[in-house]
């Protein structure tokens, strides 16, 4: 089972200096069907969280964006709540 990954928004470190949660878990690809993980990286209104706050690295943010857009297209995640 894949691990459910959570953003570093509650970290004591200041935003912009938080470690990447995906790099920590050695993630090589993000699946659009992984709803529990994707949900953590969208806010109440369905927007993607900024990587400045979540600490996600650029490489993983690009994967995440693709996965979220695919999930939105298939009706798994909302475009706008």
């Amino acid at each position: 089972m894949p691990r459910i990954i959570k953003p570093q928004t509650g970290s004591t470190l200041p935003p912009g200096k938080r470690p990447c949660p995906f790099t920590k878990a050695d993630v090589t690809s993000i699946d659009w069907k992984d709803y529990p993980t994707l949900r953590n990286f969208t806010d109440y209104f369905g927007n993607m969280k900024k990587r400045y706050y979540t600490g996600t690295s650029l490489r993983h943010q690009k994967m995440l964006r693709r996965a979220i857009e695919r999930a939105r297209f298939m009706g798994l995640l909302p475009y706008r709540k």
Partner: protein
Amino acid sequence: MTTTIIKPKGEDTRTYEIAVLLPGDVSDKDKQETLRNIGELFKEKEVTVVRKDEWKRMGLAYKLNGQTHGQYVLYYIEANAAVLHPLDQQLKIERGIVRHLIIKLPPQYEIVDWEAHYKEWKESLVKEEEDKTKEHEEHLKKKIVQRAMRQSAAPAPRKAAEAVEKPKTSAPAEELSGAELAEKLGELISDEDLKL
């Protein structure tokens, strides 16, 4: 749960994933027909299905073609790249499909049983809430016990202090009151040198 890594067997083929969203309010007969049509399409295009994953009927994040519920059917396939474009066109034309998605899978892709994953996740959420409420209750209990301990321990020294303090304040008043006080006042008033 078991996870299997899929690798392409042929030289010209790659592994892809085709996800199909079926409407939620459709009868079993129509659903089976669309699935059969898709199967025939795959046969026609010489696509080999490695694994088929049918999810349960579930709610959608937003209305799609007037549908609030839908069912996802996933096909992990092995196919030639040239086949994909006509396949995509055919799936678009196919009736009884709300949405479909064809993606190229990354190398060393592990097939996961997502339904079981959702179940596990939901159960963990319920467990977390229960743990939180339990912790809160325990914290409250501790607080109540601490307050009770403080109340039972505090009154004894307070009473002792009051008992000690009381005679000190009342003693000088008693000495002054009475006949002595009246005499002193009389002396003061009768004093002729005192000018008021």
